[in-house]
């Protein structure tokens, strides 16, 4: 009972230390402002995508020259605002090409034929609120922790604290708990501000998706905890606050700024895929060999048969090619686990519905859809005629289920949690051996 009271006293001291820290308050304020700005920008992008999507669905005017048969895309969802991920690609329409080419150019062109929104965006990263959190919450967590051990040693309070009966484990536990609670508070506040901003911009997140928000908050919190642990380890490994903050910031710049952009390129170098052009040319020659000059002359029955064979052959080329890209992607995902920032980004994009797995699912569904259209198209292989039959099935993307999402992100969850726990363990190890003089 007595130690419980002491522990509470220790906790409240640690809280005061964190809350009444001008730097922490300043960074939190900056973070909230930047989150609002990023949310505004991201919501604009969402609205733009939505407009495009509805324009795509609107019935096309009848025009003899309209030879595009059908366009399909995933509908932008409000949660895309939080983490843009590959949403810009997923929501851009993919066209099943002219009837003569109905067999090819389908799966292959997904996401690549889109017109860029604005070319100027190459100069700055496309921000979203989760990116801001990725950058600033990690700094904030490091600032919570970098001074916890070595700072107190410098001021001399650490020796006094050791005089109480709680022991070193108790002291570090109080520090960790107070840090985690503060992080939870900051995360909750940020998400609140974020949701209010989205709401103020006339976008509402459907209630059925609130669980995704909750999970994203949890991921953000654990991400912060990982950096809290890194900060504590360094703080307990060095003697002064100045050295600690230098090492913390150096590690931060590597883990948060450098590592994410690096992973894809490292994977590309380690597991090379053949040029996409090669697959494209292969498909072109299949198309030519199978259909050849018969395109406009054969009977409808014959054409349908040819089209189907072309489609099968082309699909298998696509599959082979995509498999190699998938290998690269999964390698990149694995390499990405070295940095909590990459794991975090994968997690939040997965739950915002803008992750890589979601894109794979979109490709799969589009392929099924276009197979249907390709069967449709070759019924009337006449040029200069409207080729979108009225009863053509509309493409509606069905997002991945909760179970599939959890399955897809299990490895990131595992990595993030284990990394955090191990780091906390190391912090205990160092702190118990820490020279308090």
């Amino acid at each position, binding site marked *: 009972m007595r130690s419980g009271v002491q522990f509470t006293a220790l906790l409240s001291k640690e809280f005061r230390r964190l809350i009444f820290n001008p730097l922490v308050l300043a960074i939190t304020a900056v973070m909230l402002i930047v989150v609002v700005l990023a949310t505004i920008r991201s919501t604009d992008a969402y609205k733009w995508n939505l407009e495009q999507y509805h324009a795509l669905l609107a019935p096309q005017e009848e025009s003899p020259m309209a030879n595009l048969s059908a366009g399909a895309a995933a509908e932008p969802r409000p949660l895309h605002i939080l983490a843009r991920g590959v949403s810009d690609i997923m929501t851009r329409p993919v066209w099943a090409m002219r009837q003569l080419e109905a067999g090819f150019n389908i799966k292959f062109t997904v996401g690549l034929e889109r017109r860029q929104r604005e*070319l100027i965006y190459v*100069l700055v990263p496309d921000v979203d609120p989760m990116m801001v959190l990725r950058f600033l919450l990690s700094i904030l967590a490091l600032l919570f922790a970098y001074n916890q051990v070595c700072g107190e040693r410098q001021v001399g309070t650490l020796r006094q604290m050791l005089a109480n009966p709680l022991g070193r484990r108790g002291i570090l536990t109080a520090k960790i708990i107070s840090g985690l609670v503060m992080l939870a508070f900051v995360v909750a506040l940020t998400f609140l501000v974020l949701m209010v901003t989205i709401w103020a911009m006339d976008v509402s997140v459907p209630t059925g998706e609130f669980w995704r928000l909750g999970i994203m908050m949890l991921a953000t919190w654990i991400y912060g905890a990982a950096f809290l642990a890194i900060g504590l380890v360094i703080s307990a490994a060095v003697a002064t606050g100045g050295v600690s*903050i230098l090492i913390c910031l*150096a590690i931060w710049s590597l883990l948060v700024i450098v590592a994410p952009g690096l992973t894809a*390129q490292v994977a590309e170098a380690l597991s090379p895929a053949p040029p*996409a*052009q090669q697959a494209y040319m292969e498909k072109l020659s299949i198309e030519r060999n199978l259909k050849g000059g018969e395109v406009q002359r054969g009977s409808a029955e014959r054409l349908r048969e040819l089209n189907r064979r072309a489609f099968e052959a082309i699909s298998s080329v696509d599959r082979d090619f995509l498999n190699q890209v998938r290998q690269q992607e999964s390698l990149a995902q694995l390499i990405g686990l070295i940095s909590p920032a990459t794991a975090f980004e994968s997690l939040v994009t997965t739950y915002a519905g803008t992750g890589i797995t979601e894109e794979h699912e979109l490709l799969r569904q589009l392929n099924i859809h276009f197979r249907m259209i390709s069967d449709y198209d070759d019924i009337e292989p006449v040029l200069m005629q409207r080729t979108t039959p009225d009863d053509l099935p509309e493409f509606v993307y069905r997002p991945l289920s909760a179970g599939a999402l959890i399955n897809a992100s299990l490895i990131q969850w595992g990595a993030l949690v284990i990394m955090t726990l191990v780091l906390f363990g190391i912090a205990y190890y160092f702190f118990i051996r820490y020279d308090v003089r």
Partner: protein
Amino acid sequence: MRKVFLVAGKEIHASVRSLRFVLVLVITLVLFIGATVLGTNRYNLTKNSYELTVRQQAASFAAVKSYEPMLGVFLAAYRTPNPGTLIASGINQLIGDTFYIYNVNNPPQLKSPMIHNSFSRLHGDYDILTIVAIVISFLALLLSYDAFPGEKRDGTTQLLFSGPVGRASIALGKVLGLSLTLFIPIVLSTIASALTAVIAIPDESPAILAGMVVMLILALLYAAVFISLGVAVSALTHRPFRSLAALLIIWIALVFVLPELITAAATSTHPTPTDDDFSNRYREVTMQYIQGFQSFPQDRIERRAAWFELTKWYQGQLRLVWRDIANNFVRQEEFAWAWGWFTPVMPLKLAATSYSGTNPATEVSSTDSVWDVVVRYDEYIQQKIVADMEEARRSGGGMPQYESGIPWGEIPKVEFRTDGAEKRLGALATGCIALLGWLVLLVVITVLLSRRYDPR
């Protein structure tokens, strides 16, 4: 001046032996070399793809048995891989390097034959420009944040101030010394990455070396700007930690927030038309084109000629529609130039991408050169068909048949219009001037602040 060098020498001595210098050196070396290895890898991939494509396209053109020219000749133009992407990948992150052109009635389309894995879409690319813009600025602040308060903590400020060296010389010496300290890793890393790149891509060594020199100049100026920013802010504070905190916030604002705001302003003052606007205008022009068919003359050859005339008009209209959108991108970039000097990051990025030919304006003029070829080639085909028809009529035969492998003349090679050396160097100079402006401003502020710095 000698006094300035004296202080600078002392600063270099003090910092070169510190832990942070070792950190900075290791980080810059690893990042620069890493970026170069990965960048050359990607360049070589692009180049392989390019060569393969050109070869296969030649083969496929040879294999074509027949085509009816009016149904659309399928052309493709492939942009040669740009070694400038090593330094600033810019626009190449977003678009591919192939233009597909369906002549007669379609605008050039951009497509990417390179599929990067989706993971890179999540995080963007990683090139030397990014490292300089984000990491070098950060390291500069880490080196300089305690220029004044650090001395105070160590108790040397009073000693320094009581000597015969003036405050202005001390401030200048600190900026100079710390800048030179940071220059050592930058120069070493640039040399290392230049060597790496030249070994990996020997064919392009002149372009790569020139690009590295340009990047080095920009990086040094940029580093000096952030060093002087660090010294200036440190001259305002009396505790190193406060200075670091203020600098962190300023750094976030300059490197992340302001560029975003400037781009957001650029895109809202020059909003890009949506796909819907584009297709509406496209459809409108197309309808006019089709209606034009009704007023064709009876005679076959005249009708063909009239059709070609109309097609030419149609193509011109389509090009106008495209230009409206493209010019918008150029205007956005001009806006970014005009307002970019609010932060050192924008001039740096604009100058580096403009020099490397990966900025939006260069992209627009490249696409325009594809249009030129479309127009030229169409004209060629049209003249040839009309001439053949007239020939057939004179000789009393039937209409010309285009059945067996007609080489449609030499398909004109697309020569991508990129900015000339003058314009690229001009952009570089503008960027350098903006950075120099920042540097001078900050140094002046530092000197002024150092005058009233309280050494106690």
